[in-house]
């Protein structure tokens, strides 16, 4: 894939504005999962604004690419992206997590236009992605299915049931992305489950094509996910090295920001950080 530098800049700017909306939404709701939302943002932006074959005017198009956010708690950036693309009016964004909102605390395909699969209970999205990929094969369609997992989520047994079967079925129209931000709810992934990381060798042993990337580097995201899509014969997993809370100084690498709302002061600081750095901190 040829990288257009102007496009990279636009995607980076887009990701920064998505991050700002994300922290506003979570502050407004008084609850949410900012850490894992911010680690996933750059990849979700690249998928929806560049890589995925979608038609927001026709959300039920049968041949569209699918995206399953298996780490469903990181839904705010996905909601912002869907709203920006016109799947629903942007004024819904500030209703996130409110009663009667179309934007639930975890993705709900029955309420939110553009959501391909309901998720929230960790470990289940990869199986659903396999079903979508098998469906593409049965229908003779060439759509691609992307599933985003969390690194803590890899502790769920169902992930490895799914990993075995995706390789068995030779699903090269399936790409899993592991948002490897190295933190989970209680502590660092390596403390909670020392054998969990590095996961690349495990995926390889299960029959997957394994790629790695910096999940905040737009050029790498575009290049590596394109490579994943072109791979033939086996499913591909992309280990995306990320920073939990990316772009907000007091959230980065801080386990306390897995799940909590922001005070008005914290929101002001977060927006200041994002404006100053453009989300492109270390």
């Amino acid at each position, binding site marked *: 894939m040829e990288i257009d530098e102007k496009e990279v800049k636009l995607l980076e700017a887009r990701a920064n504005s998505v991050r700002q909306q994300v922290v506003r939404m979570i502050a407004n709701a008084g609850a949410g999962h900012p850490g894992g939302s911010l680690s996933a943002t750059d990849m979700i932006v690249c998928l929806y604004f560049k890589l995925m074959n979608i038609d927001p005017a026709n959300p039920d198009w049968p041949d569209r690419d699918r995206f399953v956010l298996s780490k469903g708690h990181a839904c705010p950036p996905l909601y912002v992206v869907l709203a920006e693309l016109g799947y629903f009016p942007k004024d819904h964004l500030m209703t996130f997590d409110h009663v009667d909102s179309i934007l639930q605390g975890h993705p709900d395909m029955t309420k939110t236009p553009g959501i391909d699969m309901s998720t929230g209970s960790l470990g289940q999205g990869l199986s659903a992605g396999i079903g979508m990929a098998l469906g593409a094969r049965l229908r003779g369609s060439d759509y691609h299915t992307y599933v985003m997992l969390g690194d803590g989520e890899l502790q769920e047994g169902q992930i490895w*049931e799914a990993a075995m079967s995706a390789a068995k079925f030779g699903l090269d129209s399936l790409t899993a992305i592991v948002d490897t931000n190295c933190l989970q709810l209680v502590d660092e992934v390596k403390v909670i489950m020392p054998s969990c990381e590095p996961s690349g060798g495990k995926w390889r042993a299960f029959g997957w094509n394994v790629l790695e990337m910096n999940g905040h580097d737009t050029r790498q995201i575009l290049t590596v996910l394109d490579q994943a899509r072109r791979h033939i014969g086996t499913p591909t997993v992309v280990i995306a090295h990320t920073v939990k809370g990316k772009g907000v100084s007091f959230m980065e690498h801080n386990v306390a920001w897995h799940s909590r709302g922001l005070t008005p002061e914290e929101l002001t600081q977060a927006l200041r950080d994002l404006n100053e750095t453009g989300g492109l901190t270390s």
Partner: protein
Amino acid sequence: MNHLQSMRVAFGEALAELGHRNPDVVALDADLAPATKFSLFAEEFPERFFQVGVAEQNMAGIAAGLATVGFVPFIGTFACFASCRIADQVRTSIAQPGLNVKIIGPYSGLLTGNTGKTHQAIEDIATYRSIPNVTIVAPADGVETSLAVDAIADYAGPVYLRLTRDPAPVIFDDTHTFEVGRAYRLREGDALTLISTGSMTPTALEAAVALAQEGLEATVLHVPTIKPLDVNGVVEAARASRCVITVEEHNIYGGLGAAVAEALSEQLPVPVYRVGIKDVFAESGPNALLLEKYGLTARHVVEAARRWVTRWSETRA
């Protein structure tokens, strides 16, 4: 004696037949196809059959994904695994989004081929009754099983189909029809009302014949759809006798008896006695001895009926 037919075999044949008529039907197995009779579909439609290995949770999730792109997935495993083992996968990936997945549990109740309590399913109805959007169907025999396969395939949304493993009496002929959500009056009588589901309906009918010989004429209401319950059918069946006995091969907590008691207590408060498993885990053993020990034979139904009619006869007089 009626001739015997296995529900799981009737199911397998009906699914294979359905596969010819509906190209969107796909089947998923977790290493039990010869037992669940998904093998009959697999032989005819290998390209629409997916063997996922001993991994029921993944099977449920793959089915959900296939349903999102318009397929009608049937997944099969023993009833114990088709309920408790995948309860959260069904809840989150299938029932909450209302996806069109059919969950088949062919080794329900106690009669699981001498495998004991780990493989018996006495909690499956209760599990699925408490999950919104899930329809629960438990046919009485092979004939009704075949009809139910077609009906649930045409019925949009998640369905749990509860089946019995071994050959059992056939009570319906080819004039029987089956509609999801409807209960069926199989016998009329004013002395008491027997309300049964699944494989216990032949037992309830056998008990009704014996009770008639004692002068107690029973209405028998067969409830193949436990959820949504045909509340009107239940109320009307209980109206004349005002004395109800439920019969099921399931824990008395959370099953058909509980559903009937809940409905009647609000609509037509009458005494309800529940014949079923008394909140205990059972054990390994031959079918007849298990049914005897855990109180699920026609004789147990007759004895319960006599006691219940006697106890409430003064109230009703």
